[in-house]
């Protein structure tokens, strides 16, 4: 009943993009997002498309998966377009609708902001689709660990995120099982008005909480039994190492950023 929900949308495949060091991937994503934001004109988005296409091709992901990530964005996109189209102002009117004027500047802004949003989400999806959630938090922990000097609990944060992520599938499975068990007793989770539906969730939520608390207790006990005492002096099972492919990815991204910055200098027109 719940198997169409994919949380932590990781799509396991064997590809160079999947194999990149998560720290490098996170930093590259930040660089890419910066790139998307400093693109000076519409022509510059050609570079973004090329960069993203290359990454997508190398990751072997089916293209429709990336596109699917845009679906929740559609209302924001429409909203952005309308706002920019009619409220930008500017000198070159294209169309007078009476209540508002459509200008050349408005049109360009609408396209630019929509593209920015789209490429932002596409890039982030590429990271979450190619990186297992636990690997991602591992990378995040390492990136944030310099902040430990400032007493920022990088390890504890990462551990909490890892545990939460680890238990999402388990809890979903559990929820699925309890839902089925209650359905076997004639429960109906699908029809009824809002209030009835909310009430119908009680037989699902109570057992789910009971089991989540029991699991949390068990886990805490198991961790203590194995002498877990926080991040201090802890060695790691998976040692992250920056390899050749990571350097190549960094190089490609650096070239991409450089081209984005230099683009107005070698393209004669400005759109």
């Amino acid at each position: 009943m719940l198997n169409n929900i994919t949380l932590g949308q990781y799509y396991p495949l064997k590809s160079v993009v999947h194999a990149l060091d998560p720290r490098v991937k996170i930093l590259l994503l930040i660089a890419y997002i910066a790139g998307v934001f400093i693109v000076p004109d519409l022509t510059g988005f050609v570079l973004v498309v090329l960069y993203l296409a290359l990454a997508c091709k190398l990751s072997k992901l089916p293209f429709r998966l990336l596109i699917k990530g845009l679906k929740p964005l559609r209302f924001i996109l429409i909203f952005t377009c309308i706002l920019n189209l009619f409220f930008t102002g500017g000198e070159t009117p294209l169309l007078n609708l009476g209540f508002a004027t459509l200008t050349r500047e408005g049109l360009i802004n609408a396209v630019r902001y929509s593209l920015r949003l789209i490429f932002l989400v596409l890039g982030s999806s590429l990271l979450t689709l190619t990186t297992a959630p636990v690997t991602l938090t591992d990378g995040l922990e390492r990136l944030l660990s310099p902040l430990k000097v400032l007493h920022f609990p990088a390890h504890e944060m990462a551990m909490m995120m890892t545990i939460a992520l680890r238990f999402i599938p388990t809890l979903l499975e559990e929820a699925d099982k309890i839902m089925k068990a209650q359905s076997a007793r004639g429960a109906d989770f699908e029809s009824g008005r809002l209030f009835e539906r909310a009430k119908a969730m009680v037989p699902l939520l109570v057992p789910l909480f009971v089991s989540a608390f029991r699991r949390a207790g068990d886990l805490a006990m198991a961790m203590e039994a194995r002498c877990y005492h926080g991040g201090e002096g802890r060695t790691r099972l998976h040692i992250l190492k920056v390899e050749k492919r990571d350097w190549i990815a960094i190089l490609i991204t650096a070239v991409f950023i450089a081209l984005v910055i230099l683009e107005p200098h070698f393209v004669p027109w400005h759109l």
Partner: protein
Amino acid sequence: MQLTFDHVTHTYQPGSPFQATAIRDISLTIGSGEFTALIGHTGSGKSTLAQHMNALLSPTEGRVLLDGRDINEKGVSKRDVRQRIGLVFQYAETQLFEETVAKDVAFGPKNLGLSPEETDTRVREALERVGLSYADIAERSPFELSGGQMRRVAIAGVIAMRPEMLVLDEPAAGLDPLGRQEIMALVQGFHRAGTTVVMISHSMDDVAETARRIIVMDQGKLTMDGTPEAIFADAERLVELDLDVPQTCRMSLELRRTWPDFPMCVRADEAYEALLTRLKGGKAHA
């Protein structure tokens, strides 16, 4: 009542990288009054098969028919099917949620739209049938009971719907030997009272004592189907499938070293009779 599987295949999450075919091309028929045991290695698809019996899962291919009618058809009420075919999940006590035992057991009957009086009758009857005293337990919280009691309350929650057929997924899993025996006795009681029973089990000994028919699953396929005598006679095959034979059968095989014609006994009382006959016959010599 007759439940028929017609070439049923089920694939979880088709089209995703996590796609897994749990059962393949299953055809079988379960008739009124049968006591069928479903055995197989972990992951062989027993639970998936069981969840097809009351339309909790629908086949990716094939059909499940109740008295000749496809239970996943549009016009068929799922609630009716689930009332007629009760399913007790593995570790059923995890489904308890109400403040009191009585309210929890009443959940099923209420969903069927029964009157408060009828619901109350059903609750009393169901608790009685699982061997719990209504007076002692009805107003207690299900969460303060022992593991075995919780399991029985959960079973009562399904029994209260008065199903014609009861499907139990490893009803004795995780209980101590005494709790195990009590649950097995309950299940046998339901069968004797006229309920058709399908029981998934890991314990060959439990199956040997109770079932009249055994279905063996292996990697999603139905590989053996027959009487306990026939199934356990093929001990090598079971061992190949990583399954065991009951202790009674193992003992029978051992005794054949002394009496080559010693019968293959499945139930303990049979073994006792056979052994007694041999000993009285005085032919024993070791």
